Structure formats: C-alpha cells, structure tokens
C-alpha cells in the first residue's frame, strides 16, 4: 500500500501530543490542512493495513505498574510451542524470537509486583524453563517518537 502524504504526516507528526479537546481529529485536520473526515479515513486505513497499532497512550512502565524484560532459553524445535504459552498471558505485551542462546524475549507488564511475579512463576511452571528476569534499573534514554524516512526509494509497507 502506498501511503498518502496525509498518512505520512500523521505518522511522523502525531506520535505524541494528541489534542485533549472535544474534537481532536478536527484539530489534527486543521493543522494538516485537511478535513476531519479525511483524517479519520486515513487513520482507519492505516489501522486496517496493520500499520497503526492504535492511537492511544503509552504509560510509563515504572510509574504505571510493574514490568520487566524476560528471556527463555528454548530448544529450537520447541520455540513456537513455548512462544504460544507465553503469548497467552495478557500481561505479556511484546514477545520476540532473537538470535541468541536466550532466544525468546518478552516484556511482562502487570498492575503490581505481586501479579508480575505470579505470571513469571506460572510461565516457569508451564514451560519447565527458568526465566531470565531483567527488570529495568535505570532508563538513560527513551525515544518518544520514531521518525520514518518516507523519502527513501525502498518499498514502504509490506502489506498485501
């Protein structure tokens, strides 16, 4: 899918600072020289193309609850099976295979430490694997928005 200029602008300019007004999409439209209808249509299209995960809030992990990065060393042939177990927990919000002996990396975010610990224990019980628990000790840098380079000649979206 080819992204319209409006969609590119929405992506690069509105990853933060979404207006807290009655008609926020109308305000975006005003600032982008578009209309509310067009903005909403553009966003819906991005969502359908699975480019827009959501238009919402990103909460501070430290302040909003308990969270940790965690990893498992999974025998290669069991990776899909173990990943599926980990995925079933709603407290798991990212889960990636990575190239390392520790090959399954996920983030667990819970309302509090107690729940976080219970999720980790349950994952150990269900997989029979020891979880490497790596909570954040200090954040030196967190990028608030990620600029997409739309000018390069490479195909943008790999959406069928």
């Amino acid at each position, binding site marked *: 899918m080819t992204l319209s200029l409006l969609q590119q602008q929405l*992506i690069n300019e509105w*990853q*933060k*600072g979404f207006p*807290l007004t*009655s008609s*926020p999409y109308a305000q975006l439209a005003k600032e982008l020289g578009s209309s509310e209808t067009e903005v909403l249509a553009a*966003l819906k299209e*991005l*969502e359908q193309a*699975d*480019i*827009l995960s*959501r*238009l919402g*809030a*990103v*909460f*501070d992990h430290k*302040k*909003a*609850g308990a969270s940790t990065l965690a990893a498992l*060393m999974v025998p290669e042939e069991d990776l899909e099976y173990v*990943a599926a177990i980990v*995925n*079933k*927990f*709603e*407290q798991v*919000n*990212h889960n*990636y*295979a*990575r*190239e390392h002996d*520790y090959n399954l*990396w*996920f*983030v667990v*975010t819970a*309302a*509090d430490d107690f*729940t976080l610990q219970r999720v980790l224990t*349950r994952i150990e019980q*269900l997989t*029979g*694997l020891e979880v*490497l628990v*790596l909570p954040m*000790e*200090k*954040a030196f*840098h967190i*990028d*608030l928005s*990620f600029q*997409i380079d739309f000018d390069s000649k490479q195909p943008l*979206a*790999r*959406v069928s």
Partner: protein
Amino acid sequence: MMQTPLSKSPEPLSPAALSISPVPAEIAPDGTSLTPEQQRELRAYLEQGLPLSPRPYQEIAARLNTCETEVIKQIRHWQQQNLIRRLGLVVKHRQLGYCANAMVVWDIKDQDINHIAGQLSARPEVSLCYQRPRRLPHWRYNLFCMIHGKDREAVLKQINLLTRELKLDHINKDVLFSYKAFKQQGARYSQRKQVDERA
C-alpha cells in the same frame, strides 16, 4: 542453568491455568472525580486505543458513565504526573519497512556505565538505552540499547560505526537481532473483562 525437558501435554491449557487475577492496584491519588474503577477503565481504553470517531473522549466518557470534561481532565492529570509518556499514534515499524531490530547488550564496568550510557543515548540511531541487572553466570550484560533500521546490514553498519566512534571496541557486547515477532502490542496495566474476551 536448569533445562528441564518440556512436557508436551496433549491437552490444551485451561483458561483457569492462565488467568492471573490482579490485586487491585492503587492508582495515584489525585484531584479528579473519577472513581478508581473508572480510572482503571479509562486506562484500559487509552491502552487499547481511542475510538476513530469525531468525539473519542465523549464516547469513552459515555461508556464510563461520566462526562467528557472529566475524562480529559484525568488524562491531563496523568500527563502532568508523567504517568502517560505520550499520547498519539502507535505504529508498527515492521510494516513500514523497518524490518531489522537489534538489541545490543554491553558488559560495562559499573563505574563507567553512566558515562557510556550517556554517550550511547545521544546517538540518534539508539532508540532505547536501559540499565538492567547482570545474572551471573547466565547473563553478564548490564546495558541494553535498541536500534531499528530498514535491514540487517544497515543496523550492523550503525552498530560498527557507533562502537568505533565511541571507542567501545574493548567492551564485550552481543547483538541480538529479532527474527520473529510473536506478539507486539501496547502494554496493558489495567486488566479489564473486555480485554480478556478479546484475547
């Protein structure tokens, strides 16, 4: 490291085995008039995404049985407390051609970590830079950086360049490229029935 073989039970996991009931979290006291339950609900809506319709806050307010002003006031309050880091589009990098994502992990002497982390954080290609504990003997690395790029070669080139320019060649590091995303979604602190049903 314990590596117990996996028991591949043919039975599917029961929902009960997977459900963790949360202890009600105390949400920071504040000057807004939403009840703790309404606050939890609102947080869940914000994590799930605003409705793509002309009056999103009004719509959420209606579902929470309150008014739009209170919803906006609460969100603003959370922003002031820095509980909300950002409000806006959350995009999937992969779908936009940013297919390579490397976690670069470093084994840095404790006394050097602030200095080196500061240098790494100043690089535009580093999107996250966190200190995490070592877990010896299994895990020796204490600094984690995330680097996204359009492809593997581009990311490796960036890593080599920053290692050279910051003179970090002597430090043990490892580069963990991701090769499959099993799950990628916004964090959900507030467990909500509706979220359960959607899972």
